[in-house]
């Protein structure tokens, strides 16, 4: 029966997969069959049968580990000795970690605003044109591919070849520099600007999301509002600033906060493109390095908690804005 845990051939793997799905279906069928007796089973028991499996998993996989991580963040690297807030002090005072925090804030400031701005402008520009579907599809496509794939795509754009006789650039960015008469540049290695070149990749991915949501919001603006503004003489940029933007404000807030939360946890891009070297590491990457490469469970847990704490104000802002916009309506 070892193949259930260690499937190694394709056949075994597919077999384990089928086995898992059948097992899952069987367990669920037994649970549901047991409570399928109309009027004889109390409501709470049916609710338990419907919610119980999900609740158990959430308790096992989110709530318990979450609390455990908070607890571990006050212990040392092997989770044996209590160290109080030392891990947090280390994160906020040591120079290496300060670069990590600084980078995370740069990401957090630039990516949501830039992606939303690009997405918004693009959505307005292509709205109601003949090529709308195609134009949107092009921007949207990066959303389908993994951040690992996006990282590879852009790493190739930034690829550097030394400036020597007979050596051609193979990365587009450096070739453009050469065409413009400049020297090729080590985009991913030269700090501090390399962080900027990494976060372009995230903007590239998230602009499509921003564009899709904002485009839908723009199309939902009542025509009479636009019409009234037109009659009052508003056109072009003034129409955009004083009518379109205020009308889609709730959607803008959702987009900015959603991207901000994704950006805060950015990991794949940094890991694929620089591995966090050359001063490009961010909190989520440092969390991975400390937890699973340096085996410093204390610092790792503290970094995860920092991530959690950073998310909370964004969520609160999001909920407050949604409440406000509902009151206005």
């Amino acid at each position, binding site marked *: 029966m070892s193949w259930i845990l260690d499937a190694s051939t394709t056949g075994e793997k597919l077999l384990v997969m089928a086995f898992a799905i059948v097992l899952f279906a069987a367990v669920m069928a037994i649970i549901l069959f047991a409570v399928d007796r109309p009027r004889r089973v109390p409501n709470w028991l*049916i609710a338990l049968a419907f919610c119980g499996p999900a609740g158990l998993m959430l308790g096992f996989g989110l709530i318990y580990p979450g609390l455990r*991580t908070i607890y571990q963040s006050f212990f040392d690297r092997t989770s044996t000795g209590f160290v109080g807030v030392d891990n947090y002090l280390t994160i906020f005072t040591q120079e290496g970690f300060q670069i990590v925090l600084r980078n995370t804030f740069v990401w957090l400031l630039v990516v949501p605003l830039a992606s939303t701005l690009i997405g918004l402008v693009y959505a307005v520009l292509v709205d109601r044109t003949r090529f709308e579907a195609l134009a949107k599809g092009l921007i949207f496509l990066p959303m389908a591919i993994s951040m690992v794939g996006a990282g590879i795509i852009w790493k190739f754009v930034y690829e550097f070849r030394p400036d020597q006789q007979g050596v051609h650039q193979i990365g587009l960015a450096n070739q453009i520099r050469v065409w413009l008469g400049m020297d090729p540049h080590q985009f991913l290695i030269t700090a501090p600007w390399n962080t900027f070149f990494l976060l372009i990749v995230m903007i590239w991915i998230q602009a499509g999301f921003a564009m899709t949501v904002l485009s839908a919001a723009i199309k939902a603006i009542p025509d009479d509002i636009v019409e009234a503004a037109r009659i009052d003489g508003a056109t072009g940029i003034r129409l955009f600033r004083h009518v379109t933007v205020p009308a889609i404000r709730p959607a803008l807030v959702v987009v900015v906060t959603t991207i901000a939360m994704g950006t805060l946890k950015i*990991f794949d891009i940094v890991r694929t493109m620089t591995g966090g070297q050359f001063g490009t590491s961010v909190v989520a990457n440092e969390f991975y390095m400390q937890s699973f490469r340096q085996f410093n469970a204390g610092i790792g847990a503290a970094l995860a908690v920092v991530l959690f704490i950073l998310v909370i104000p964004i969520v609160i802002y*999001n909920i407050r804005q949604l409440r406000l916009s509902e009151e206005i309506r």
Partner: protein
Amino acid sequence: MTATPDSLSRPRTARRVARTAQRAEQAKTRLSSPWATAISIAVAILWTVPTFGLLLSSFRPEQQIKTTGWWTFFSDPQLTLKNYTEVLFGGSTQLSTFFVNSIVITIPSVVIPITLALLAAYAFAWIDFRGRDFLFVAVFALQIVPIQVTLIPLLQTYVDLSLAGSYWTVWLSHSIFALPLAIFLLHNFMKDIPRSLVEAARVDGAGHVQIFFRVLLPLLVPAIAAFGIFQFLWVWNDLLVALTFAGGTQNVAPLTVRIAELSGTRGTAWHLLSAGAFVAMIVPLLVFLSLQRYFVRGLLAGSVKG
């Protein structure tokens, strides 16, 4: 993370038809500014050229990729499939194995959370029990927990249970992480179904299990498709969960893990990296392009998880 699902999912066909005529009228004036056209074309190019460059490179001979830029293809066109055969079946990369792993990881990680979330969402929407609202808010709040917070203790538990490094831990983890958003989204869709429909079935003597399967499930197919694509793309494209629970082993690790690793260890082997990246992209791209309608719907209804 929270949009207003009801305002977006209501049928708007009638209004849409009425507006089409008006839009055609406005289209003439819209892109009149040459600046607007120039900006949108520039953005479109900037968003496509990087991908195109790597795609073209993946079909060029290894020697050419290493010495000349992909734009030289237009003056010296040479194409080959050798990179793909090497990256898929060559001894050093073996991506075909990891491709299978990706599929084996993804399918249960989509099916299991959707099933569980559907059941839970039904209970929250249509079964009256004490503490329901409190529990629903709690599930909703769990959406904000970053998965990083859970990884170390979860891995410890798996090691204690001697399950670590198997598919089971990856399936379980992906299912758990998907649940809060899935329950929230599917609950919103379920609430949209008219009460009278459910009441009628109840009067006819159907229990909750029958109502769930006979009445609600058929009506929820678009919602399930919307979330299913989401979860599919999320799992297939995930790196962190797989890296933590599957490790780098050839028996479990998915494509993303292998390619991220290649990028670190063989960062200049562009003939392998370019072809490998597209091997990993082809499935999500096909799913995405063929089911884009549902994807956009899901995106607008509930936004994205992290």
